[in-house]
């Protein structure tokens, strides 16, 4: 194969360009800086140059686009979208990238993309602009649209190419419920035409296909083409879109603008001439990118999160330390499995052999065996390898070699103190002792610790393999070295850490409790329970306060409540706390595990709110009237009560940065991510307006809403939690 000298100009360093004159095939290998190819404006410009270069080649018959890096290509980092505040300028940037891909697509020769590794966002869109896609089918291959998680729309043609390639229904499926697609799934979905074992085989197939002289145009650029499946303005299409709107509303309760804009892009563009349809996509993408919700998602879920992850010294890759887990309950068993899957040797200790058996049963349910493909499940071999790393035991001695012990027994202080006394002496110097407690102060648990410097809290969230947050509790005597080692451990597990101070409920449980109790208050006041739940989700909370209370268990919730009352002096006894008491004590409705709570359950499945709630909360009283503002007001109360708690935690030094407060609430508690977090939410309202609102709420509903002094002072000084320059 002869190669022309690499043409000068914009192509290098973005591409390695070569030409096989005998076959008439030009190859463009993406050689982005660092380890990545990113579809941004520089690459788009280079692509246009590359197409022009290829066009001038004598006897050109086809183009192959591939990557010199392990991953094919991705889109820009989400925060790049925040860099251009001006709508017209942002639109122009988006259009340039779209037009570059269009140039590739209409260059007059067929183009094949050879895919490997991660094909994400703009990288996937680049692949879709080619006429054929072949891929190296190894575990690294994944086709995905992660930008959607930040409230960003695909803006390089996916909303218009996918429907034209696959039809409306399949395209909407992929775009609205995006999950990464591996090789076979991508092929079955129609995104990839053929899979190969290695790069050479894929390249050979590309050459073979190009030698058959295929049409150098997309199907939709040929005359007489019609949309596959139901036509764009047909009744069937209308019903599909309507159903998708309904499903979206069911899932998001109208709390996220981006998926709605995405549905619009598909619906509005699919009946238009392609080049104008791209324009529709571009304008809606710009609209999404400039929304306050998207900016908040990017700041918290991208910027704050990456900053927190960097504290760990990098995500896990190396095997973690030998870990001892004390207590084989739901949390302990889950933690043991999770650590083992991340390469740690694990000792799981319990005093009860039945508990160990139940733990084994839980692990067995994780991998469904060959054949079934449960999303997120490990391959059978990885599962077996993980299990091989776990040593369940009734004995104490195996704990001695652990670099870290994590106590995950019941939330009873005396029990935890006993476990500490029993196990701390086994530890080698430098080994750490941690408690997974969600609320009990370290100072109490470790009051009799021999070496308090090695003691800390590691508060995990359930289910531990899905919840990325790890709340590290630093006791008054916890050493710097302990903290560093714990952060490294967090990295080994791929967790996002926040470091908080010691005090009842630490940070997240305090905020969680405020939310849960406020839900009870609202019901006790006479608000329709269905409205409370919906209003919470409409405001952006992942789960309503009544459902979350049932999941945690109302008895446990009351236990934490009692602890908070005793140690923090809040919350006061109220109609809401009395409602919780009545549910548990009088009605025997302790939550999901008890078979009945706010909701009714049949065989563990939630079946609807208990109709008796109204009578219980306000016997004889007519429910509160529902107005157009009801849901918005209820939702705001539920967010603000958490914000107030977050401010208090900041004021008391439990959290040291607003970033940690926001990240912790969003990742650990499902706090409305579109607000950015409880403190970002206050910034968005404007601190003076937030204080005024809180004063009004306090006047009607009580002192729990009163703005803390720190908030009032910040409002008076005109200092939001996040400086405006950020």
């Amino acid at each position, binding site marked *: 194969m002869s190669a022309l000298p690499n043409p000068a100009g914009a192509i290098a360093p973005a591409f390695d360009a070569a030409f096989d004159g005998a076959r008439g095939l030009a190859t463009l290998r993406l050689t982005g800086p660092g380890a990545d190819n990113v579809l941004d404006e520089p690459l788009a410009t280079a692509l246009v140059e590359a197409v022009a270069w290829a066009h001038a080649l004598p006897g050109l018959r086809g183009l192959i686009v591939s990557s010199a890096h392990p991953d094919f290509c991705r889109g820009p980092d989400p925060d790049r979208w925040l860099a251009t505040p001006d709508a017209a300028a942002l639109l122009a940037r988006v259009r340039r990238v779209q037009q570059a891909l269009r140039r590739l697509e209409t260059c007059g020769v067929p183009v094949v993309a050879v895919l490997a590794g991660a094909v994400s966002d703009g990288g996937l869109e680049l692949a879709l602009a080619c006429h054929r896609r072949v891929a190296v089918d190894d575990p690294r291959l994944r086709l995905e649209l992660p930008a959607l998680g930040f409230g960003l729309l695909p803006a390089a043609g996916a909303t218009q190419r996918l429907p034209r390639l696959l039809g409306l229904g399949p395209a909407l499926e992929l775009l609205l419920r995006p999950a990464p697609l591996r090789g076979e799934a991508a092929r079955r979905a129609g995104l990839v035409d053929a899979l190969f074992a290695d790069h050479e085989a894929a390249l050979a197939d590309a050459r073979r296909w190009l030698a058959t002289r295929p049409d150098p145009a997309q199907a939709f650029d040929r005359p007489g083409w019609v949309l596959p499946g139901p036509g764009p303005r047909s009744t069937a299409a209308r019903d599909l879109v*309507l159903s998708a709107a309904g499903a979206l*509303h069911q899932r998001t309760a109208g709390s996220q603008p981006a998926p709605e804009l995405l549905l619009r892009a598909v619906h509005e563009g699919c009946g238009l001439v392609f080049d104008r349809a791209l324009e529709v996509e571009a304008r809606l993408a710009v609209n999404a990118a400039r929304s306050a919700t998207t900016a908040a998602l990017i700041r918290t879920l991208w910027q704050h999160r990456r900053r927190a992850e960097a504290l760990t010294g990098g995500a896990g890759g190396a095997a973690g330390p030998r870990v001892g887990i004390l207590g084989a309950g739901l949390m302990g068993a889950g933690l043991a499995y999770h650590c083992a899957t991340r390469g740690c040797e694990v000792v799981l200790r319990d005093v009860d052999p039945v508990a160990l058996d139940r733990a084994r049963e839980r692990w067995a349910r994780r991998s469904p065996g060959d054949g079934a493909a449960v999303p997120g499940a490990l391959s059978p071999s990885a599962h077996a390898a993980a299990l091989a790393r776990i040593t369940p035991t009734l004995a104490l001695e195996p704990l001695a070699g652990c670099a870290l012990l994590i106590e995950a027994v019941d939330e009873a202080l005396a029990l935890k103190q006993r476990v500490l006394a029993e196990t701390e002496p086994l530890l080698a110097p430098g080994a750490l002792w941690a408690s997974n407690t969600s609320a009990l102060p370290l100072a109490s648990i470790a009051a009799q610790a021999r070496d308090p410097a090695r003691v800390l809290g590691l508060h995990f969230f359930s289910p531990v393999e899905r919840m990325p947050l790890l709340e590290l509790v630093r006791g008054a005597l916890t050493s710097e070295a302990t903290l560093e080692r714990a952060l490294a451990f967090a990295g080994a597990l791929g967790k996002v850490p926040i470091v908080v101070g010691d005090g009842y409920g630490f940070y997240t449980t305090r905020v969680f409790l405020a939310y849960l109790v406020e839900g009870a208050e609202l019901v006790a006041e006479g608000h329709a329970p269905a409205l409370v739940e919906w209003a919470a989700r409409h405001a952006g909370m992942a789960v309503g306060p009544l459902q979350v209370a049932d999941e945690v268990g109302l008895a446990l919730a009351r236990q934490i409540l009692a602890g908070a009352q005793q140690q923090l002096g809040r919350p006061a006894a109220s109609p809401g706390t009395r409602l919780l008491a009545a549910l548990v004590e009088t009605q025997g409705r302790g939550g999901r595990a008890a078979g009945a709570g706010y909701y009714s359950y049949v065989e563990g499945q939630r079946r609807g709110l208990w109709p008796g709630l109204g009578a219980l909360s306000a016997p004889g009283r007519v429910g509160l009237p529902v107005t157009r503002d009801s849901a918005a007001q209820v939702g705001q109360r539920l967010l603000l009560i958490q914000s107030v708690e977050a401010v208090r935690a900041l004021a008391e030094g439990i959290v040291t940065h607003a970033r940690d407060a926001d990240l912790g609430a969003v990742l650990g508690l499902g706090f409305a991510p579109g607000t950015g977090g409880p403190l970002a939410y206050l910034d968005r309202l404007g601190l003076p307006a937030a204080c005024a609102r809180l004063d009004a709420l306090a006047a009607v509903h009580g002192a729990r809403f009163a703005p803390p002094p720190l908030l009032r002072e910040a409002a008076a000084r005109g200092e939001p939690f996040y400086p405006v320059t950020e």
Partner: protein
Amino acid sequence: MGEAFVFDAVRTPRGLGKSQGALYTVRPVELLATVLRALPARNALDSALIEDVIIGCVTQTEEQGACIARWGALEAGFDPRVPGVTVHRYCASGLQAVNQAAALVASGYAELVVAGGVESMSRVRMGADGGAQYDPALQWAVGSVPQGIAADLLATLRGIGRHDLDAFALRSQQRAVAARDAGHFARSLIPVCDVNGLPLLERDEHLRPDTTLERLAQLKPAFATLGRQGALDALTRRAYPQLEAIEHVHTAGNASGIVDGAAAVLIGSRARGEALGLRPRARIVSAVSVGDDPVLMLWGPVPATRLALERARLTLDEIDLFEVNEAFAAVPLAYAQEFGLELDRINVDGGAIALGHPLGATGAMLLGTLLEALERRGLQRGLVTLCIGGGMGTATIIERV
């Protein structure tokens, strides 16, 4: 201001709105022409004296597209100097046509106008004309759901259960059968004939005299799958967040029937009537349209009624009979519940559940039915109202002369 009078009202019998229906072979323009021909014929009237033909039609596409009023008039042999205009206010289009005709006459802009409606649901499928509301942006901003979901939403909000709906449906059937058998409709029914003059349909064919509560109870809810699996119930949450779930209670048996039909009403000034020897049968006292919640959609008749009464300076007690279109059984039931009305003043000769609802024509049909019921019973005043897609309501009050 002047006054508008109703001189005559005619309608075709309603055929089943599917390929087995007796009117399936009849072109929509011919269906309309049937009633338009009848008015000059029955009233010894030269069609050239008619100043406008205002026709309601909902699915204005394909054979009902463009301006069917104009082509129906020409097909009926009207003098070409008579113009026509087609109007669309969803299910109230026929009454809208009557109201517009009344306004033209009362204002003095015209002296003699024909108003009516036509819909061939067997030949032009409901929804074939697309719709501005099928649009995600509008869904999010304003919200709208298909009418069946809205009907179930109304029933759930008002605590109207399946049994109530079925009982009302049975009542509609029984009254329509009794009315038909007693010849109540004979005066205004115009048979539809073929090109040879052979009759295709002479009586409403949607009626089910064999209806029983047991039979109705066996029918499956028509909108449950659409609401739950199709996730359309979720679109009502923003407007009605206090409802955890919608009870799906409407079935094919307690909702209006899909049928073909046409109607026409002759409306004019007292002076023109006298000059032409036409006997005025009723005066149009008030004619209104209102907007209401688009998500609930079917509540419009209530505020429309209140406004019509206010304009007419009448109270509810002064209305002797009501026609409240039975789009879904929950509509007249919720209406009666809201106003504290006894059902025996509402839809006395049955309604759309039994007879069918030819969308663009029904409003004009109900006006005729109401007038005849008032005349037969020697009563004075009646009110016609229909619920409307997009959440509107139209109402008209007539008074016998």
